[in-house]
């Protein structure tokens, strides 16, 4: 897919683990893992909102379009 999820990059920048993010965002580890590994087919605005709040970033920092 042309959309890349840069969740792992942002997590590394904020020095936060998947477990900590899971607790902050309220998502299961399995779902976060799907998002992190790029297997996700869609993302809800509410999920994006909570991840942006937890990582203090913009949606554009998490999502990238490549040609």
């Amino acid at each position, binding site marked *: 897919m042309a959309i890349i999820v840069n969740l792992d990059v942002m997590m590394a920048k904020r020095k936060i683990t998947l477990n900590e993010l899971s607790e902050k965002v309220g998502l299961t580890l399995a*779902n976060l893992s*799907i998002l992190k590994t790029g297997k996700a*087919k*869609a993302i809800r605005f509410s999920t994006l909102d909570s991840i942006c709040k937890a990582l203090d970033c913009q949606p554009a920092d998490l999502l990238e379009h490549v040609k």
Partner: protein
Amino acid sequence: MEINGDFKFKLLNVISWILFIGLAIETGGYFTNALVTLFFNSEWASHFWGNLDLSGLYTFDLGLFICFITILILISLCKTIMFYHIISIFHKKKFDLENPFNETIKIYLFNFAYIVLEIGLFTYAGKVFAKWLMDQGIKLPPLENLNFDGSDVWIFMGITLLLFAKIFKKGVELQNENDFTV
């Protein structure tokens, strides 16, 4: 006795097993009978499986006889494979009503639809072939005894199943999308 979901499935499983064994015996019977007639004793053509008298066809032309019994065997074989698919789905325990839209059931539905269509096409071909042979003046058993009737029903059922399989395929795609929506 209370008829619940499990009981219904067990009953269907038992019926499928009985039909599968019956059809497997019939297919084996046709095949063995054909082999014996062709290679050992040509008199068996008059006592074919299911009390069919195919001696008229055998004496008329051996090639046509082989074509005819091939169609008979193919129809019987397809029906056996159809029931094998039904049994396998019961035994593999892939029929999960909690999460019915999965790849295994999708493949099963497509295979099932194609086999039913094949039965319909072979039955139709057999019917047309038998009628043509009768027009040539060859004495053949009635079409009902040859399992050549009901080709239109098989084809209709096959097309309907194919449509259901297509809809199911879309369902599987939607389920996958839903599962991977975070």
